């Protein structure tokens, strides 16, 4: 099955962040190893004398060129719709894309999105021509509202950013999938293990966005490959169709023509 974001076909369902790697070189190798075509990045004030950011930006440009990929700027750090809208406009000018990973944080402790500000920012950005990819909680009604506003892509969290706790509430995530069958759903944040990514794909999620689980691995390049395989595996499994879960045991081996000694107990 093909995968696309706002009509742009993509070969990989893994979207990857560019932060927290041990070095820019490892970042580049890991992103290339992930097979991802979508790389997230951000805008920040920079000490004019510190040129590290420019090197990262150059590497990301090289990666995108090699992978024929796409930039996905975020609005990390924004706490109000106004801040997020301004940062989105700045990103659009710099990165020449109308895609925006919209983050509006309402709580510093768990970096939980502020649903009210998120909806306000989404409405303004869509009216201004942006293609919004909102990072949100696993709240069905919030996801529905975002979809109704015009978000073709919705990105509920698995768990708080950077925790690696995996899918905190599979029931909520499955419900969102079932109730929004036409939305492109990308699980974003909190993924710790390749099996988390695989589980999301087995649920029918369209993609997975992660950063820390790869960047903070002992070997980010190998972990990027592991996630690539996990996402592909989960997607293949979803398309193949999982067997229904059953409450009682069923023998795998045919029982017809079972040798007589197996019937000994049953004949009593």
């Amino acid at each position, binding site marked *: 099955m093909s995968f696309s974001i706002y009509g742009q076909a993509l070969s990989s369902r893994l979207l990857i*962040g*560019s*932060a*927290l*790697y041990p070095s820019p070189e490892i*970042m580049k190798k890991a992103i290339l190893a992930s097979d991802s075509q979508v790389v*997230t*990045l*951000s*805008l*920040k*004030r*920079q000490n*004019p004398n510190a040129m590290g*950011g*420019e090197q*990262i*930006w150059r590497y*990301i440009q090289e990666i995108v060129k090699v992978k024929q990929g796409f930039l996905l*700027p*975020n609005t*990390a750090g924004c706490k109000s719709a*106004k*801040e997020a809208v*301004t*940062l989105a*406009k*700045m*990103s659009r*000018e*710099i*990165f020449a894309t109308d895609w925006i990973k919209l983050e509006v944080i309402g709580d510093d402790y768990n970096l939980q999105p502020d649903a009210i500000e998120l909806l306000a920012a989404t409405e303004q950005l869509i009216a201004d021509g942006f293609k919004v990819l909102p990072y949100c909680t696993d709240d069905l009604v919030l996801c529905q509202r975002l979809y109704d506003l015009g978000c073709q892509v919705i990105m509920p969290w698995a768990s708080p*950013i*950077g925790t690696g706790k995996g899918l905190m509430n599979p029931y909520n995530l499955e419900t969102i999938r079932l109730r929004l069958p036409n939305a492109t759903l990308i699980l974003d944040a909190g993924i710790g293990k390749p099996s988390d990514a695989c589980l999301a794909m087995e649920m029918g999620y369209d993609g997975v966005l992660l*950063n*820390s689980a790869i960047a903070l691995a002992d070997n980010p390049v190998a972990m990027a490959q592991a996630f690539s395989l996990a996402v592909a595996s989960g997607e293949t499994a979803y398309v193949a169709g999982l067997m229904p879960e059953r409450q009682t045991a069923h023998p795998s081996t045919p029982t017809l023509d079972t040798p007589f000694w197996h019937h000994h107990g049953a004949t009593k």
Partner: protein
Amino acid sequence: MNIFINGEQVSLLEQASVADALQQYLTEQQQALTFAVALNRDFVANSDYATTCLTEHDTLDVLFPIQGG
């Protein structure tokens, strides 16, 4: 007049524009980098730098690409 660029106080001539402020604040090498600007938390398009005038105590944010998740 005094304005703030990325939190630092900068003295400029009266009626200076955003372009003037950037020229004074950034080195030539930095001006060649990729960046975007907000004035008092509102986006200012690159094409408007020369025609957007600053006033006392304005705040200018100059943002650069950086890694992100």
